[in-house]
């Protein structure tokens, strides 16, 4: 019997990340990029916002899912562009996303426990 493919898991993470990026991404970039309101990037303001567990949790989940979204799409676009299917390529993509997600979860946990 062939071992089960992890592809459905990666596709689900890609889909979840894509949906989250589409729903909140543009507004989040506007808030941090403008910034909106003008004092949004002040230390005290951002610390206050991150004090809400939902804000910290939302950002942590976004970072992790966006990394998996990017890893999946970049990998399959590289295949489409003619890059040969080498075993190390998915390992680098999904491994990088996993490392970033673990870091994001650690930082989020530190925020929530504060």
């Amino acid at each position: 019997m062939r071992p089960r493919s992890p592809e459905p898991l990666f596709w689900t993470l890609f889909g979840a990340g894509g949906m989250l990026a589409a729903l909140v991404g543009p507004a989040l970039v506007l808030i941090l990029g403008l910034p909106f309101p003008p004092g949004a990037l002040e230390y005290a303001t951002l610390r206050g916002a991150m004090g809400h567990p939902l804000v910290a949790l939302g950002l942590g989940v976004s970072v992790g899912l966006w990394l998996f979204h990017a890893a999946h799409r970049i990998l399959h676009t590289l295949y489409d562009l003619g890059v040969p299917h080498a075993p190390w390529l998915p390992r680098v993509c999904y491994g990088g996303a996993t490392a970033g997600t673990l870091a994001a979860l650690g930082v989020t946990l530190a925020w929530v426990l504060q």
Partner: protein
Amino acid sequence: MTALRTHTRSMKGWWRRHPAYRQYLLREATSVVIGLYALCLLWGMTALLLGPGAHDVWRACVQSLPGRAFHLLALAAFSWHAWTWFRLLPLTVAPLRLGRYRITQTLVHRAALGAWALASAALLVAAAGGLR
């Protein structure tokens, strides 16, 4: 066994053959910016946790000229991603029925755009009110 000698067209440079192929690549390319933006957020969350000094470095980078240009690029990438994502969404969900009524693809698309508007408005209102 005789080997088949049919002509197969090379896939080399396929994206040059049709504008739709280039649009497809542009859509896929948004994921690179989205991944980089996730790293920028992770850096910001970590810096804020470490203290005012680390946060100042992050903020200075975000508000520098390259940082602003990156945010402009990110806004374009996220928006194009959202627009194309919701346009494709009806094709990825199974046909839906609500009692006797069939939920059409147009309705799914419009509902998704509405949810996008609602989520964006909620986020902006929360930022305007909660972060003051």
